[in-house]
């Protein structure tokens, strides 16, 4: 149960509240997942007044403040087209007004198209107060921030790449049963993330080019069977989508 609500006005205050050892404290973004918390007693630290909804660009890419809503992302020009599609498919219109990008990453499961896209794009989380960077993929595998890191202050999204994403679901608006996201750099570097199952999207391939990608994808999906689709199906469909996507690139 949520027993305390705080809305700090500075990062220092937020860090102080989040590092309070007397009660478990959790950062609150949009609240779409936390608002019905029925576990242990917690305090929530609302990040809305910290100025974390800024967006800036430099040669590394977009520095997206952690509490930018998903709808804000759709209004920022310059991302690959399929990134916008990933954001749209993440959730419905109303929830896109509320859900923050950092909250969506933290609360994601394997069916998140946004996170699959971010994993393939090798996006980085920037933690406060340490300032340390951590790849989205690494964070998801551990679900643990780096040392002396209490909240995500921004997400660094690289844009010197092309992104293509295919998505299999029962209907156009349904949650995914398979996601294949491919990020390709001019150098030929190719990263492939897979989603639609499991606890989080996974990085299936990261190579100097696409050679060996299909084998890696099939291998990554060998244990992907669940109540929604068999591994056999996911492997076959992913390899067909992969070929289609690589051929059209």
């Amino acid at each position, binding site marked *: 149960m949520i027993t305390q609500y705080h809305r700090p006005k500075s990062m220092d205050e937020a860090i102080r509240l989040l590092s309070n050892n007397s009660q478990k404290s959790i950062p609150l973004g949009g609240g*779409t997942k936390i608002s019905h918390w029925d576990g242990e007693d917690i305090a929530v630290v609302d990040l809305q007044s910290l100025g974390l909804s800024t967006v800036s660009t430099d040669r590394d890419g977009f520095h997206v403040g952690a509490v930018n809503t998903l709808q804000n992302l759709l209004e920022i020009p310059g991302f690959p087209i399929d990134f916008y599609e990933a954001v749209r498919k993440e959730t419905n219109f109303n*929830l896109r*007004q509320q859900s923050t990008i950092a909250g969506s990453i933290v609360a994601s499961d394997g069916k998140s198209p946004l996170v699959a896209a971010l994993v393939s794009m090798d996006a980085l989380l920037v933690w406060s107060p340490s300032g340390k960077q951590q790849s989205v993929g690494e964070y998801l595998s551990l679900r643990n921030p780096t040392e002396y890191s209490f909240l995500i202050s921004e997400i660094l999204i690289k844009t010197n790449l092309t992104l293509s994403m295919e998505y299999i679901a029962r209907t156009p608006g349904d949650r995914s049963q398979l996601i294949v996201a491919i990020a390709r750099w001019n150098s030929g570097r190719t990263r492939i993330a897979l989603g639609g199952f499991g606890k989080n999207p996974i990085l299936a391939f990261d190579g100097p080019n696409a050679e060996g990608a299909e084998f890696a994808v099939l291998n990554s999906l060998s244990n992907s069977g669940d*109540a929604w689709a068999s591994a056999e199906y996911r492997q076959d*469909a992913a390899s067909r989508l992969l070929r*289609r996507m690589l051929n059209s690139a």
Partner: protein
Amino acid sequence: MEIHIKLNGVAYNWEVLPNDTLLDVLRQRGIFSVKFGGCKHGECGACTVLLDGNPVNSCAMLAAQADGHEIITIEGIGEHPEQGWKKTRGLHQLQQAFVESGAIQCGYCTPAFILAAKALLEKNPNPTEAEVREAISGVLCRCTGYLKPVQAIMRAAAVMRGEIVPPVGGDDAIRMGLDWSKKPDLPETPVPQTDHGSHLAGTQVDLMPKVLTVAAEQPQVLKQIGKPEPKVDAVKLVQGKPAFAADFERRDMLVAKVLHSPVAHARIKSIDVSKAKSLPGVAAVLTWKDLPRVVYSTAGQSDPIPGPLDAFSLDKKVRFVGDRVAFVAAETAEIAEKALKLIEVEYEILPAILDSTESMKAGAIQIHDEPEYKNFADSNPLKNLAAEIRIDIGDIEKGFEEADRIFEAEYEVPKVQQAHIEPHVVVTYWDEDDRLVIRTSTQVPFHVRRMLAPVLNLPVKRIRVIKPRVGGGFGGKQEVLIEDVAGHLTIATGKPVIYEYDREEEFIASRSRHPMKIKLKTGVKLDGTITANEMYALSDTGAYGCHALTVTGNTGHKAMALYVGDGKYRKSPNIRFYADVVYTNTPPSGAYRGYGVPQGYWAVERQMENIARELGLDPITFRLKNAIRSGELHPFSTAWSEGREPRPEIIHTVGLEECVIQGKAAIGWDQKFGNQEWHQVPGKPHLRKGIGIATVMQGTAIPYLDMGGATIKMNDDGSFNLMVGATDLGTGSDTVLAQMAAEILGVPVEDILVYSSDTDFTPFDKGAYASSTTYISGAAVVKATEQAAERIRIRAARMLNSSVEEIILVDRMAVAQNGQQISLSAIALDALHHNDQEQIMGIGSYYSQSSPPPFAAQFAEVTVDIETGVVVVDQLIMAVDSGVIVNPITASGQIEGGMTQALGYAVCEEMVYDEKGQAREKDFVDYHIFRADEMPQLQTIFIQTYEPTHPFGVKAVAEIPMDGVAPAVANAIYDACGAKLTVNPATPERVWRSIHGK
């Protein structure tokens, strides 16, 4: 903590708790337009408010997060234009457009739609249809199919831009007698010009459905029947008035919660509630030990219930994950939830049957071993058999002998949810006369009263059931599901109690469509004549036998009745329908719109398609060759009637052939079917297009059983109170009943004030099910109103010195043949106050000896990814013969909404359980229902026949749209890629397996 917000322009300081959601806080303060959809993470959007101008889901944010922000709810954007002497700003253009366009069905999600649209139009006054659909995609609607809300928003946008929009029902009114298949030379409705090109064509222009009248005798031109009258409750709903069961406050009201079983099958060895009872704020904790042991059925049906009595309010045995273990009433929901966690239960786990094929095997554990079990007909708890059906028509074996080919196949359909957005909700309290008042969201208020009386140990006369506005039902509320919980707790505590399901409870502890495994065997001559047709259905009723017999009986009664065969077989068809309805340890099945018939048509229509393709016959010609025709005997009418005595019924009107003609033309069948070029998608070699059809029939009410009553009384001003027991679930039935009364009385619909329903004040009606309200309750209204009209004519004749026979009622006047006339208000004053005083009123009830079937041709167009099995449904067109259409807007809304539900049945909806009986689907994330931004194009065409058994010629419209979509989609998939699906829904993997022979 204190928060400061601006709500609808007024600043407030509110004390809230850190864990209060914004939804909770708004509703606690009487903002009832913001609805609870049962979800926890904003999946349905019924709780939408505008936060700083953006639509957000108030259930998915803390009230504290809103501190310092501005909130707009529907209360803040418009109000009733007439409030006595007070001038108001009137309705907002969006509200007005929703009223005019028929965009409101149950009305539960209407405020949310309007707020989302308002946010859009403030940023983008000239949106495309796609932008509108995206903007409202956060709001789920189970009634409309989204077409009319989108049309309403586009219409409002045009009005707000200062454009002139065509009146609904003016030039746009029904174009009687036109043949739409021949593209008649019609005056086109002007299309508002935009900068975006032609994006409005899909939705804004065609507010009215196409209607073709094919009745042998053209019905007389009427003033109200056939007119797209706005719904009588539209203005109320568009303002978000507190019309629903939970929109109700009473001092000291307790909140009920139920402890649900975590295991599929077990005996309760011990249960300790002492810790829960001692929790401060807990008023009562009830277990099976506390309640009288009364066996009953939860199926809301007429007496005697045509099924076994096998349920208790609380039992010492649990039979599915989600079954009831204990009831709690507490001061708050949080306290009640805490109390549930303090109840200690020790279970003796029993083997669970989760697969219907295991239920009747020797040695299977008996799910119902309670001595109180009461059989109905052939039920047999020793065999886990809730019902057995054995129907033989003609000589099936001889029919097979006469066939050139025999086709046999097995099909399967899943368990699916009604998914009404308003959850089950009930409030109970003792009134000042110590009578128990049950305010409940139900389709069957009179059955609730009758059936709960023994369960609560109260006489019927000490129970009053009030049915307020219902936020969708679709059969799910044809169940006396939770009223007993609140009733027991009010009896235990003496206090008012509210019990409201959350969405997870809707999935694990509610009712659903019966899953079935169906075998079909069909004998056919090479010329396409069906000589015999045999179905065996293994139907899974889950843990309790509610609706077991009647749902499954209708699977055969409707789906196996359509194709009687040709030639000599027309007079003597050979049909066999056998079914076993078995218990399993899964959540109970029950009534769901279509009531067994969609299951049957999945099998029958897939079978017909396969036969036609195998024999090289045109699938449409083959169907029509064998389909039943007008003047023929309903083949099942002499064999089965929902557990009661069957009696022969002649089918008087069959518009099926015209449905096919019009539907074919609308979808361009002749240009697409068999056209290989059309099936290809340029530049996309992995895509194939396909087109499919299914033809279907339903029923209209249950003959010799269903009865509805109505009373009508005249007021001083010449208006009328129409009181009906019928329940409007969002279908528009209150409106069409008012139209019938208005037609007879010669008044506009606004002069008919409909009240429905309250067991103390309205006449009996069996309730809203079996597609019966317009037909049965409508005929009752006609009878009652004709009585009142006759009294008016008698008095008018006296006042005008005329004869009664010469008086006609028109335009609020009684008019004599010589042209003299007098207003109805003058007649009312005369009757009530001046001369030979009397209350002009009428009372009528009606039950039918017929169940005239509506017919339909359902068309579907799809695109299939032949590599991955992904199916996108591009278009659905339904041409339907529902007799005379009383209100084309509300009727087409029924068709659009029904097709959309059925589309889910076709491609995505199913309820799956693991090896322990745990549900895979517990929310609207995993159980996906279609959103506005992913809908195919929908089109409705009405083929008007005139059903002679009804005073206005009507047949049913409500359920038939559920029947044909899934098989039509599957047949279109077959047309696209050759995939022969036998199991629905058509998930990507199922289609892929079929294509690739996996």
